[in-house]
């Protein structure tokens, strides 16, 4: 398609990662005609660098709508997994047995207590959790090491195979009629009378609505349609081991055993700009914590390491907003594209097609980052 617009979709989605494809899939389920414009293999690929947790506990401390939002997504997740299995035959291996946050000191336990009790109170009690001492923890996770003095557990948590998820979303959305354009690079979005002209490398794409789910690219693109999305990179590093016989039947925040038997180690956070290389010191810290958590992993072989860049807002919470200046353009961005995949498909997509705005979204406008006394050129 060179130099002219393709047969008119209802919605253009910029970005074909976990967020864009979940939104596109939901839009297709709502009957919308969708084209997804994806960057291709040269992009930063956060959707392939994550940990696969479907995690609720502890989230939203300081902004309780995020706790509610995460919880609702976790509840909707079985429906998404079933829909993907039915549409594609791919089992994304969703398991929601609950999850543990292991603690190595009394201070860590106290922090968990404070965080989770506050969230429970803010959610009116609708927030089940347990604080476990070493003995209780060992009954549930026999392999846990002597340095672990306790943990918080909630039944709300789980994990999934994130690579199968991305593949299933791509497959399912296309089976539902979504057009995927790969290897594109969107630089300019121009509001027009009847919608938006989205300028790619060799083509212009037009639709009445455009959704920005381009990860770190949302900052520059949002600015062109009156949306403030000040996302910046936050680096996470991950270690993956060889496949071992199943020994860990629950995910933990730092260590989980995947459906195929590999053990994944992670949860580091660094500000390193756009540098997505691994570093020995951080990998050592991750490995050390992993072995302290589960000593039987001491000699496990590591087969892969990587780093990836989270799409991080200044307060870490998502940005969901429809532009007031240019209605019909939306930004949908977060750093928990796995946990929130169900909410994106089942609660964000209906909003984009014109349904009521989900209650929680009032807290997630990008304008919250603008200082009150700025006279903003971007309305919020």
């Amino acid at each position: 398609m060179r130099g002219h617009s393709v047969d008119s979709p209802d919605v253009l989605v910029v970005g074909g990662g976990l967020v864009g494809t979940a939104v596109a899939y939901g839009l297709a389920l709502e009957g919308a005609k969708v084209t997804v414009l994806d960057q291709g293999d040269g992009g930063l690929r956060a959707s392939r660098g994550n940990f696969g947790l479907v995690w609720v506990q502890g989230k939203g401390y300081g902004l309780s709508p995020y706790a509610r939002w995460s919880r609702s997504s976790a509840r909707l997740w079985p429906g998404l997994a079933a829909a993907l299995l039915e549409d594609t035959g791919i089992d994304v291996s969703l398991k929601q047995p609950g999850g543990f946050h292991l603690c190595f000191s009394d201070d860590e336990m106290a922090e968990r207590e404070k965080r989770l009790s506050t969230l429970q109170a803010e959610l009116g009690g609708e927030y089940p959790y347990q604080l476990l001492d070493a003995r209780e923890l060992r009954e549930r996770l026999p392999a846990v090491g002597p340095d672990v003095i306790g943990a918080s557990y909630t039944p709300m948590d789980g994990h999934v195979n994130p690579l199968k998820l991305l593949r299933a979303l791509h497959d399912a959305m296309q089976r539902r009629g979504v057009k995927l354009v790969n290897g594109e690079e969107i630089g300019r979005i121009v509001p027009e009378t009847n919608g938006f002209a989205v300028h790619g490398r060799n083509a212009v794409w037009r639709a009445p609505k455009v959704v920005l789910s381009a990860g770190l690219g949302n900052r520059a693109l949002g600015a062109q349609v009156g949306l403030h999305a000040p996302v910046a990179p936050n680096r996470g590093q991950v270690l993956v081991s060889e496949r071992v016989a199943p020994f860990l039947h629950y995910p933990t925040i730092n260590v989980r055993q995947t459906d195929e038997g590999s053990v994944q180690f992670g949860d580091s956070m660094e500000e390193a700009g756009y540098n997505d290389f691994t570093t020995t010191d951080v990998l050592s810290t991750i490995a050390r914590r992993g072995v302290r958590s589960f000593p039987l992993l001491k000699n496990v072989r590591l087969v892969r390491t990587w780093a990836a860049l989270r799409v991080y807002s200044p307060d870490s919470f998502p940005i969901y907003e429809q532009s007031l200046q240019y209605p019909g353009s939306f930004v949908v961005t977060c750093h928990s594209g796995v946990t929130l995949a169900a909410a994106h498909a089942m609660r964000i997509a209906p909003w984009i097609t014109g349904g009521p705005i989900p209650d929680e979204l009032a807290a997630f406008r990008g304008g919250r980052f603008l200082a009150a006394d700025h006279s903003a050129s971007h309305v919020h």
Partner: protein
Amino acid sequence: MTSKPLFRVLQPAAGTDAEAETVIQIWFNDQSFSVPGGRSVAAALLAAGVRRFRATPVSGAPRAPYCMMGACFECLVEIDGMPSRQSCMVTVQDGMRIHSQEGARDLPPLSDLDPSQASTENAHGR
């Protein structure tokens, strides 16, 4: 079980590779094989006609070496009691006892970890 080998050993030019001209004895799943030395365990086993090196833990399907350069992890076998060795990355030695890897390796039971291993020292004593 072996069958007619899929691979034929290329003979090096005379005198260029003494090790490759030797013949050594190894065991695979308790069956003895005479194989040429001076090459990886994977190459030696393939030369001897072995076609099944392991069962993948994901589905139980039979697997054999693929990339022959340490990237794909398809060639995993147990060598002299140590599981999950990449046979393409290990030089074959006379007397090696090799077993197919059936599924994922078992982690050592906690009781097998001696007290010094439970510390955070690494293998280099740091």
